[in-house]
């Protein structure tokens, strides 16, 4: 049993192997091969995750910390006492995320084999999906914030690659897709700045980035409750095999007399033997200050800063106000990508990291308040916008933002277990809805091609958009399986008893109520906003069902749509099943259901690694109000859109006229968020870039400095050097020497007359001269 956690690196390794195979041999494998390689990699990761879950159950939920073999230390500077290892953490929280990511991921991989059929970059798509899985798994498995950040950035990269996957589509679509990818990437950079700042602050404050160190008791509250031998046994097991020194310590603590001393706290540990969260708790008890150069802040203020920066990152990755704007555009990616990355897994990373850091958020009351308000505000705003969208995937995108708002708000009111619960159920039914919408789009495209078959198979109908709900309608008879799955997803999302969404949403609402009753104003705000948002949710989802499936077909394509192949409907059925039963993961004690499914199973499970997790009390009144609101909203939606009147004669929404016109228009224009960012960020940025590029770089640096000063100066200097200096002086000297010698030679050659007699005379004269010179000294004697 001890060795089971050692398999955890395999969870990441399998997708990497799949990625490598598809990267190098994907084209040769063909569609089936490439798709199944990736899917099998995901399924193997899922199997590993199940094994890890089994290990935790059989081992009293005690976490294990694993150092992956072969890759060694990451950052280790002994002199500066910096040590950031590659270390993976297997605990109930990370395994929950593992199961969701690999489980839903596997289903979506298989679905994508059908959905991506015929795509020219089929293998690359699956390579990217596996890349995403690998990074997402690193994100949830890391035992320190820096490893988490590696995954965090990695999933951002994969998201970028997959949103812009169809960058080469015709008619400007490709440009739109790649712009959406860039938008997602750039907006997320703003959030990543926050994550980085919070990591820096944490490292400065705690000198470590580890969540928990080996041998540390995570939830001391639980440890205090348990007694005697049991606690001691848990303690001994808490120590991982790697940490031998602590094993010895734990053994010593049991005492020699057989008397069991329960290690129910971390009191025996040095500060440096604890991770970020343990240190934070200890230091708060001691009320220590933190010094940043000339500034000294109390630890509480520092933690508030850390969490505020983290919140900025969360608003980026988890698409909350104010950084949510990238997610609706991210729907430009293929639908399986929207389901996996932009609904079920990556966007929940923010909720995961806040739940992981619950110790800090509980201490930072201001941040928690802000988190609650942002979450609830996002939930209702996105729900409102979703009401007036035409694009089937855009509705779901805003719905995702809204549901993420629910989770974030839950974190804000301290309902960590409810947030994670909703994260899991949402992954089920939102993946289901996205895959359902993918199936609808697939069917619509089929119908479209069927109609235009005669016309050389090319698209001639420029106005046709397979995602626009105005062209749909009446698909219930064409795609019965998809309809069944979609209606289950819709009801689950709307929170209809007893589907998954009912339980998780209700727990959030109940927790908000409890929080409010404890005297926190944000509890009441969250409760009211989320109840309204829940109403919106039911309304826009039923509107969508009416528009897509009910009524009569509003286009040729819809009339000829056909059901998707089994490889797509199969995953739909699997997710539909999960959406039905997912809610019983955390059943409250009501109607005797807890007798069947166990009481608050998920909370009990999460408590082991999330210190502040607690089971939400079931509030029958809240549940009935929420259910009533949802059913009421569905009824209203049915009366507005039901029958034949989902879209009016002139192709607009029934609500777009009359008393509701203003409200509808406001939602339809998405509250002008994009225009707002365009005005405050994009246009000033472009103007600055234009100023820097055209005025500073081109006109000043290029035209003035380069051309006028350097260029002309250089040319002038060159002119001086080349004409007077080179041509005049240097050439003059060289030519002058030449011509002097030539003239000298001309003069001297005249002596070479060729007359022998003249030579003889000069010879004689020479001899006479030599003789005279020789004789002169003699004369003087």
């Amino acid at each position, binding site marked *: 049993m001890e060795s089971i956690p050692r398999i955890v690196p395999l969870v990441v390794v399998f997708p990497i192997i799949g990625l490598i195979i598809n990267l190098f041999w994907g084209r040769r494998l063909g569609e089936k091969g490439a798709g199944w390689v990736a899917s099998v990699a995901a399924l193997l990761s899922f199997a590993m995750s199940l094994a890890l879950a089994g290990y935790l159950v059989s081992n009293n939920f005690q976490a294990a910390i694993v150092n992956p073999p072969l890759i060694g230390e990451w950052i280790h500077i002994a002199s500066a006492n910096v040590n950031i290892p590659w270390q993976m953490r297997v605990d109930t929280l990370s395994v929950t995320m593992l199961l969701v990511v690999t489980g839903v991921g596997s289903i979506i991989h298989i679905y994508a084999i059908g959905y991506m059929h015929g795509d020219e970059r089929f293998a690359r798509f699956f390579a990217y999906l596996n890349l995403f899985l690998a990074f997402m798994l690193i994100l949830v498995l890391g035992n320190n914030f820096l490893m988490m950040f590696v995954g965090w950035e990695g999933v951002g990269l994969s998201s970028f690659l997959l949103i812009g996957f169809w960058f080469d589509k015709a008619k400007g679509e490709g440009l739109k897709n790649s712009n959406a990818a860039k938008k997602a990437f750039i907006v997320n950079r703003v959030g990543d700045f926050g994550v980085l700042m919070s990591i820096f602050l944490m490292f400065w404050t705690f000198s470590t980035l580890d969540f928990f160190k080996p041998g540390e008791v995570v939830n001391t509250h639980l440890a205090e409750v348990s007694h005697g031998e049991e606690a001691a046994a848990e303690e001994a097991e808490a120590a991982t095999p790697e940490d031998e020194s602590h094993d010895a310590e734990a053994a010593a603590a049991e005492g020699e007399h057989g008397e069991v001393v329960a290690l129910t706290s971390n009191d025996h540990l040095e500060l440096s033997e604890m991770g970020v969260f343990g240190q934070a708790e200890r230091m708060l008890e001691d009320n220590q200050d933190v010094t940043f150069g000339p500034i000294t802040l109390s630890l509480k203020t520092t933690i508030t800063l850390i969490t505020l920066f983290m919140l900025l990152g969360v608003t980026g990755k988890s698409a909350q106000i104010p950084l949510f704007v990238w997610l609706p555009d991210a729907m430009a990616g293929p639908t399986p990508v929207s389901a996996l990355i932009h609904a079920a897994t990556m966007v929940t990373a923010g909720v995961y990291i806040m739940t992981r850091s619950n110790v800090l958020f509980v201490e930072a009351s201001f941040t928690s308040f802000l988190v609650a308000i942002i979450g609830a505000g996002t939930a209702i705003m996105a729900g409102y916008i979703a009401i007036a969208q035409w694009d089937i995937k855009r509705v779901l995108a805003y719905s995702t933002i809204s549901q993420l708002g629910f989770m974030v708000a839950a974190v804000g009111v301290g309902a960590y277990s409810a947030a994670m619960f909703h994260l899991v159920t949402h992954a089920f039914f939102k993946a289901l809805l996205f895959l359902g919408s993918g199936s609808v789009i697939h069917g619509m495209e089929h119908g479209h091609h069927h109609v235009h078959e005669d016309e050389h198979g090319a698209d001639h109908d420029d106005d046709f958009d397979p995602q626009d709900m105005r062209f749909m309608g009446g698909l219930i008879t064409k795609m019965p399986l998809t309809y069944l799955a979609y209606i289950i997803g819709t009801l689950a999302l709307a929170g209809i008893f007893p589907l998954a969404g009912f339980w998780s949403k209700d727990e959030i609402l109940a927790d908000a109520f409890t929080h409010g009753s404890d005297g926190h104003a944000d509890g009441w705000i969250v409760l009211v906003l989320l109840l309204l948002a829940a109403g919106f949710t039911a309304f826009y989802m039923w509107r969508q069902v009416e528009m897509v499936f009910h009524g009569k077909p509003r286009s040729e394509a819809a009339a000829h749509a056909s059901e998707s192949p089994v490889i797509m409907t199969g995953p739909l059925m699997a997710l539909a099943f999960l959406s039905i039963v997912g809610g019983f993961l955390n059943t409250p004690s009501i109607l005797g259901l807890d007798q069947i499914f166990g009481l608050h199973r998920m909370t009990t499970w999460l408590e082991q690694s999330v210190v502040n997790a607690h089971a939400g009390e079931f509030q029958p009144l809240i549940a009935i109000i929420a259910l009533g609101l949802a059913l009421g909203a569905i009824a209203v939606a049915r009366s507005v859109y039901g029958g034949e009147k989902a879209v009016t004669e002139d192709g607009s929404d029934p609500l777009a006229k009359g008393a509701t016109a203003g409200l509808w228009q406001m939602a339809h224009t998405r509250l002008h968020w994009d225009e707002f960012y365009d005005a405050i960020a994009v246009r000033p940025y472009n103007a600055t870039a234009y100023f820097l590029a055209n005025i500073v770089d081109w006109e000043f640096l290029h035209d003035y400095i380069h051309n006028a000063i350097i260029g002309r100066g250089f040319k002038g200097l060159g002119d001086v050097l080349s004409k007077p200096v080179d041509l005049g002086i240097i050439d003059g000297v060289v030519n002058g020497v030449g011509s002097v010698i030539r003239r000298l030679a001309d003069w*001297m*050659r*005249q*002596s*070479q*007359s*060729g*007359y*022998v*007699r003249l030579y*003889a*005379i000069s010879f*004689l004269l020479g001899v006479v001269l030599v003789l005279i010179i020789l004789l002169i000294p003699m004369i003087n004697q």
Partner: protein
Amino acid sequence: MEIGIGAYVVLSAVLFTLGALGVMLRRNAIIVFMSVELMLNAANLAFVAFARQFNDVNGHLFVFFVITVAAAEVGIGLALIVAIFRTKKSINIDSMNQLKG
């Protein structure tokens, strides 16, 4: 009557001068050639005269060398003159100025 060394030296100088003037003034290659011989023999006469005067055998030795070299010179010189005459039909040395600068 004993003829003194001075007479020999004067005769040698006269012969040398005549030779030198011949080399410088005459245009016929044969004559120039003969004038060169005259100068050589003037020098020979001076050598012999001084050798006898100072009773030194080196003077005689030199004369033999000069006669040998002059014989070789005559061989080559006359061959050159014949060769030139064959091409130019003239032995006027002023016409042999093709190598002027």
